[in-house]
Every structure is written in structure tokens, then in C-alpha cells.
């Protein structure tokens, strides 16, 4: 089934690219003609330039001289502009460099070290961090066009306890025909909606319970991504990735280091001037070999061997009066997850049993910026565990104990400028049998040159 789908995809891509090929011959003739004309034009311009040079000496450089014909001014203005942008130092080739600092304060009524979601074997990054004051990972980003064909970006993260990690480091094509873009290296996966963004882009201090449970906060890895953008007025994009598969929900870099693969389709557009939307569906498959799951103290709670399938549906709707989000805007965002796993689970005591699951989850959030700089938001997130097999023992990690884990968060955000943001967030966390009231304060500071974000 998968093979034949890919064959069809390829056929369609070729069809879309064909007309461009057919035009090449006529283009060549045109180019010849064009070059001849340009030569004539250049000769003429040279003569004009000589004349203009003489003019320039006679006309004073005063902006209030409104009697000059604008065309004559055009001739004068061009050299002035060139002079101001000419630099000879190698510095101008530096990539754009930015640093993102963030940190804050967290308070929990329950001990965060005991965080768990009954019925789920969690990855190592699904928890919420420690109590009290502290900084989070600082991010350093370098991005630039490499040459006329490639763009590259590297994001390094500095953990507060020390150490440098490569969060993303990828190169992406700019010049492929037919609407195809290929990206390679280490990157955040394009599945779902929010997964591909760095956390400083988010409207809440942390990711939803569903993102943390199903994707271990953020899913990514080392691999290759191909995307095809349809030549239509409505945005339609197809993409696929092959990744190493050493990250949750995969594990162990199975299949000789190609243990995760996914495809996604995204569609989007505008409704009038004020509304825009983006919808997507993604399918992720991973094969796990001895994938470890953890409790919130970093202690291994078990290992899983088998197959994982995850489907994510996503929808984002943004509103801004007349399409101008500066003063007021509204954003509605939701993702739904359905995951299935089949294999064997070995618990911390070494007891191995058969295991299948059929998990559901999702979140919905709404954020409203009511005046420039200030926004409020609410998010509800939930996950549902369905476990079966001989590994599911009462009282074990896989025992959901009839609990329906969910979490509701309220956020108030303030931005002094687009480079400095502050947030206050309250969450009622019912991931476990006892409710946890959580309060968090956060700052995000951006220094240097940082490009804008995707929709």
C-alpha cells in the first residue's frame, strides 16, 4: 500500500513539473532575443550615463530642488545608493545570530518529582521540571543562506547545569524545481502543528499534556525530509520524513538507524481579510528496540520493543481585524492524537509481557491579544490510555487505574516588544489521582537577529 502511494505521488509531481520542461525550448529562443535587446539597451545606457555625469556636476544635490525632473533624479540617486551599501569587510557574510534566554519560577502543590501519567510509559522529557527559581535551556541560533541553492540553520541549546546540545542543525534546498524542498540533518519533525516550533514561539509556558505524553514534548531527530508544495492558490503541502528513530516514541535506532518515518499533508488559506487557517493530518510510524521509559526522577520504568503508529490531526484558526494582528488578534489551535503500540514491555523488575495499546489524546487552546502587548489564553488537554496484554499488571506503570488524565491552563502574557516577553500561567493538573495546582512565571528574551516565525 505504501509503495503504490509513493509511486502515485511521484507521478503527480512529474506531471506538475512537465509543463515547465516543455517551455525550455521556447525560453531559449526568447533568451537569445532578449540578450540582443539588452546589448542594445546597454550601449544606449552607457551613452546616457556619460551625459548624466555632465548634468550631475551642474545640478546641486538639494532635495528641495523640486524643479528637477524625477527621471533626472533617478539617474542621480542610483550612484548615491550604491556608495552607501558598499562594504569591503568579510563581516557582511556573517549568518544571523540570535540568543534566546528564558527562565522563571515554578510552584507546585504536589511534588513534581512524583509526576506520572497512569497508564502511559513516558519519555524522558514529558515532565514539567523542578520547583522554584531557575533558568531553562538557553538557545543559540545561527541561520543563513549557504549559497544560491541552500539555506542552513543550527540551534544549539545550553542546559542550565552545563553542556551544549545540538537541538537542530539542518540544511534545506532553495532551488529545486517543481515545488520540492528537501531538508536534511537534525530537525524538529513537521508532523502535527506545534511540534516543529521552538518552545519560545509558544503562547503557553509549557507544551500540552498530549504533546508531552505522545511526542515526549518535541519529536525530532536526524534524517531527511521532503516536502512538495502544490502549485495551487489554496495552500496544499505534502511531506515525508525518514528519521533515525532513536527518540521517543521510537527508540533504539531500529532498522539500521532508520527507525522512524512519517508523512503529513497540510492545507490552509484565508477567509476574507481577517481570518486564516491551517489544517493538517500526519501519520508517524516508528519501530522500537528497547525503548526506555522513565519516571520523573530519570529512573527507567521499563523498556518497550515493538511497533508504534501515531496519527495527528491539527487545526489552527487565526483572526485579526483586517488582517492586522498588531493591536488585537485571536488564535484557536487544536490537535488530536491517536496512538497504537504493539509489542512487548519489560518492567523495571525485568518482568516481560505482551503489550498492545490504543491511546487517545488532544488539546484545544484559545489565545486572545486584547491590546498591543497583552494577551490571555486558556488551554485544556487530555489523554486516554487503553492498555492490554500480559504486561499490564495492577499497580504497574501501565495500569491506568481508571484515571482520565487532563490539565487546564490559563495564561497571561505581556510583551514589551517582540524581543521581550513575560508570562504568568496557572494550571490545574489532574494527570494523577490527586489534583496539582501549578503556578509558573516565565521570561523570554531574544537578543540578536532572529527571523520571523512560520504561521
Amino acid at each position, binding site marked *: 500500500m505504501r509503495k503504490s*502511494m509513493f509511486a*502515485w505521488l511521484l507521478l*503527480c509531481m512529474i*506531471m*506538475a513539473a*512537465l*509543463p*515547465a520542461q516543455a*517551455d525550455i525550448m521556447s525560453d531559449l529562443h*526568447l*533568451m537569445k*532575443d*532578449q540578450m540582443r*535587446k539588452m546589448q542594445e539597451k546597454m550601449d544606449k545606457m552607457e551613452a546616457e550615463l556619460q551625459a548624466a555625469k555632465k548634468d550631475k556636476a551642474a545640478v546641486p544635490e538639494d*532635495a*528641495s530642488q523640486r524643479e528637477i525632473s*524625477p527621471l533626472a*533624479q*533617478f539617474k542621480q*540617486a*542610483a550612484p*548615491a*545608493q550604491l556608495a552607501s*551599501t558598499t562594504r569591503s569587510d568579510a563581516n557582511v557574510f556573517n549568518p544571523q545570530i540570535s540568543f534566546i534566554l528564558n527562565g522563571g519560577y515554578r510552584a507546585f502543590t504536589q511534588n513534581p518529582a512524583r509526576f506520572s501519567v497512569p497508564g502511559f510509559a513516558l519519555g524522558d522529557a514529558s515532565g514539567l521540571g523542578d520547583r522554584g527559581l531557575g533558568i531553562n535551556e538557553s538557545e543559540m541560533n545561527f541561520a543563513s543562506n549557504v549559497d*544560491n541553492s541552500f539555506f542552513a540553520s543550527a540551534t544549539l541549546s545550553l542546559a542550565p547545569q552545563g553542556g551544549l546540545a545540538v537541538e537542530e542543525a539542518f540544511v534545506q534546498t*532553495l532551488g529545486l*524545481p517543481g*515545488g520540492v*524542498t528537501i531538508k536534511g540533518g537534525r530537525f524538529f519533525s513537521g508532523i502535527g502543528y506545534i511540534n516543529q516550533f521552538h518552545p519560545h514561539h509558544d503562547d503557553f509556558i509549557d507544551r500540552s499534556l498530549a504533546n508531552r505524553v505522545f511526542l515526549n514534548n518535541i519529536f525530532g531527530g536526524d534524517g531527511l525530509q521532503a516536502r*512538495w*508544495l*502544490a*502549485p*495551487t*492558490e*489554496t*495552500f496544499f503541502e505534502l511531506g515525508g520524513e525518514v528519521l533515525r528513530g532513536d527518540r521517543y516514541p521510537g527508540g533504539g535506532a531500529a532498522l539500521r538507524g532508520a527507525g522512524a518515518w512519517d508523512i503529513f499533508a*497540510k*492545507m*490552509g*488559506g484565508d477567509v476574507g*481579510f481577517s481570518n*486564516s487557517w*491551517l489544517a493538517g493530518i500526519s501519520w508517524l510510524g516508528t519501530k522500537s528496540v528497547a525503548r526506555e521509559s522513565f519516571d520523573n526522577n530519570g529512573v527507567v520504568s521499563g523498556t518497550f520493543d515493538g511497533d508504534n503508529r501515531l496519527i495527528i490531526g491539527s487545526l489552527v484558526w487565526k483572526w485579526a481585524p*483586517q*488582517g*492586522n*494582528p*498588531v*493591536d488585537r488578534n485571536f488564535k484557536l489551535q487544536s490537535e488530536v492524537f491517536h496512538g497504537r503500540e504493539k509489542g512487548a514491555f519489560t518492567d523495571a523488575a525485568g518482568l516481560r509481557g505482551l503489550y498492545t495499546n490504543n491511546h487517545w489524546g488532544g488539546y484545544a487552546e484559545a489565545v486572545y491579544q486584547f491590546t*498591543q*502587548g497583552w494577551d490571555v489564553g486558556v488551554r485544556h488537554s487530555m489523554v486516554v490510555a487503553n492498555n492490554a496484554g500480559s504486561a499490564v499488571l495492577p499497580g504497574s506503570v501501565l495500569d491506568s487505574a481508571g484515571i482520565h488524565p487532563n490539565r487546564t491552563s490559563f495564561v497571561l502574557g505581556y510583551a*514589551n*516588544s*517582540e*524581543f521581550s516577553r513575560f508570562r504568568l500561567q496557572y494550571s490545574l493538573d489532574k494527570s494523577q489521582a490527586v489534583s496539582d495546582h501549578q503556578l509558573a512565571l516565565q521570561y523570554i528574551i531574544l537578543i540578536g537577529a532572529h*527571523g*520571523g516565525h*512560520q*504561521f
Partner: protein
Amino acid sequence: MRTWIKLCLMFVAMQGSAWQAQAAIHVFACEPEWAALVGELGGGDVSVYTATSALQDPHHIQARPSLIARMRGSDLVIATGAQLEIGWLPILLRQSANPAIQPGKAGYFEAAAFVRMLEVPTSMDRIQGDVHPGGNPHIQTDPRNILRVAAAINQRLQQLDATHANEYQQRFIDFSDRWQAALQRWQMMAAPLRGVKIIAYHKGWAYMLNWLGIQAVGIIEPVAGVSPGAAHLAELLAGQKSDPAAMVIYAAYQDDKASDWLGQRTGIPVVKLPFSVGGTDKSGDLFALYDDTIHRLLKALNR
């Protein structure tokens, strides 16, 4: 289900073929003034998509899916440049998977490269807000710049579509004649505005002030991208006593609250200017843009 997906893909692929087969140059204009200009110069040989409206802040546009899709099918992108679109255009270019319109190619055009830039900063520090290293990018507020950009767009259109070179040249000469006449008309109309003092919402008007000889004695939002504080507004009120301005001006896309407040406190008129084509009811084309701008300024002056 599978057949359905296949049919969908076939349809999408075929729609693409049909679109490419059309003759006209597809132009993606980042701002309405360039859309109007390329419409004048390209006539029926171009089909123009306008990425933003005059009611949107061109600094803050979201890289919406619709913009990416439109850029994918474009042959020519016309931007203002000078980092005006720095927050969104680079993402669109990168996501568009369109090699023809990448910077450096003939399909990418920056208007600011063809005019003399004003307010080029000598020092760069974000304490001044989100400054533009290349100078003030709002070059369209001076109609003399429009003609300079028109000459450059004309050349680019002829380069991209040599078969219609004569038509482009003809339209340019025609536009240039009409524009020269209009420039003389505007100059006479705007003569009373020379030397008038104003307070502007943000530093978006440098080129217009230079053109009409108007003097800005105060800026409501002095730090670009940061809302004005109460202390600064009080300062403006105090300044009004020593060096009085005749009016407050702001662009159609800007919030009118601070401008209105200042106008009420000082008793001087508050003028909304179109800033770009379509910013007001009477600024439907390039000529009307400057007609309406001067009319509004004169009306406030004579009140």
C-alpha cells in the same frame, strides 16, 4: 479511499499545469503601492497578487499559508526592501519552494535599492526599537520615488518577458508622462503645506516630509514597535506649548487611540492618511493616493 486520494492528487497536479500554461507574468507585490504600480506598467501582460492591504502594518504580517501558496506560483516578487518585510518575507521565500524568485534572481525585486534612502542610522541599538539598518523603508510616501521605482520595474518586466518589451516600454512612457504632470499638480496644490509643523504617529513619513517641506516636531511612538508610554505623551503635550504643531498625522493601519487623545488634549486636528493605495475610501489608485493625502493635509491646515 485510495482511489479518492489518487484522484485528488491528479486534480491538484493538473490544476498546476493549467496555471503555468497562462501567458501573463504572475507578480507577487508585497505592498499595495507596488501592486498598483506594476498594474500600471504591466497592464494585461501581468496578473498581480497583493500580499498586504493598506490596513495592515507592513512590518507585522504573518507568513500565512495563502501567501506561501501564492508565492509558489509567482514569476516576480516586488518588495519594498530595506528590511521592511524582514519579519515575514524571508520565511515566505524559503517556504515557497520557488527558485525563480529567490533574492539575487531576476524574479526578486526590491524597490528601496533604486531610491536615495533617508534616515540611515549611524548607530544600531535595539534601545531605539526595531530599527532598519538600511534607512527608513517607507519610500512610497514621496511620489518622486514612485517614478524611480517605475523605471526599474519597467526594465525588470522587459527582462522577464522580452516578447512584450515594446508594450511595457510604451506603458512606462505613458505612465511617466502622466506622473510628471501629476507631480507638478501636487507641487502646486501642496505649496501652502511648506514649513508646516506636525506630530506624526511613527517615523513613517520621512520621505513625504522631505517632499512637501513639512517639519515633524514630535513622534508619538518614538521607539519603533513599542507602544508609547504616558510620560512620553505628557512630553509631547509640553512640547506643544513651546513649539506648536498644526496637526497630528497617522497612517490608516495604525491604532488611532493615542493620536486622538493627543489631538483632543492639544485641540489640533488629527489626520488619518492613506499611507498606501486603498488606505482610505478615496485612495483607490496611485494617483488618488497622493491626491487624497494632500487633500487631507490641506483640509486640516485650513480648519
